[in-house]
């Protein structure tokens, strides 16, 4: 079988695009849950470049880093969603424009 190769920069381009979409969603979206999902999108984009570089340099540590990023992302999502629930309980809105008082 002929070995087929995918250029490394294809992966980096896709990863950069996902990250840019995450940044744009973070800036554009007004719903606090969607803003959170944009952060997850950014983390996914970074993970892709981690794995691509790990495959390129034959370094398995890149995959372990991805594992740690996933763990931290899961912890962040848990606490963040709990904060969203707390905000909704006091503010009764998910729009970040209406959450304008520092006091919860």
């Amino acid at each position, binding site marked *: 079988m002929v070995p087929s190769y995918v250029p490394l*920069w294809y992966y980096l381009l*896709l990863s950069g695009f996902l990250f840019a979409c995450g*940044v744009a969603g973070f800036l554009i*979206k007004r719903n606090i849950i969607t803003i959170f999902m944009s952060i997850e999108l950014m983390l996914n984009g970074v993970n892709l470049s981690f794995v691509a570089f790990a495959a390129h340099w034959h370094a398995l540590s890149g995959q372990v880093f991805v594992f740690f990023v996933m*763990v931290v992302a899961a912890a962040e999502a848990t606490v963040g969603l709990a904060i969203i629930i707390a905000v909704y309980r006091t503010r009764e809105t998910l729009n970040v424009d209406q959450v304008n008082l520092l006091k919860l």
Partner: protein
Amino acid sequence: MHLILFLAFGAVCVGGAVNLLAQRHPINSALSLIAVMAALAGEYLLLGAEFVAAVQVIVYAGAVMVLFVFVIMLLNAGEEEHTNGSRVAVLLGVPGMLTGSVLVAWVVLRNSGTESVAIGALPGHPTEIAQLLFHDFLLPFEVTSVLILIAIMGAVVLASKPEAATGKVE
């Protein structure tokens, strides 16, 4: 063949990411994010990272997104409304995103050499990852478990009812 698979999964990724931005209702955004994550798992498989692909499906597309969908349904989140702030955000965010992606693409393309990733080149066998994880990265691994414990307790404290958090039980 691998290039075709890469392009197919990449198209799903790009479409899902754009759809996440375009949709107004959070549940649609969540579903497109699940599509992005599943397609990314395919990309990881193409890169020979089977362990990461499995963890991506189980943890990200599974656990984290279930949490998101659960909160969306719990809070009965509807479509986001347009405000002054959202108009400003779109006016600033869309050019910012375009600038960012063009910048990233320019840097990547300028430095793009002939390097390519051989498919299945990486010895991504779970045994070797376990060796790394439980030997070389043992301390970070243990610290992560403490982090998760703190996250669990923080989530319980934050999401519980205010009177329950202060210890007043009827």
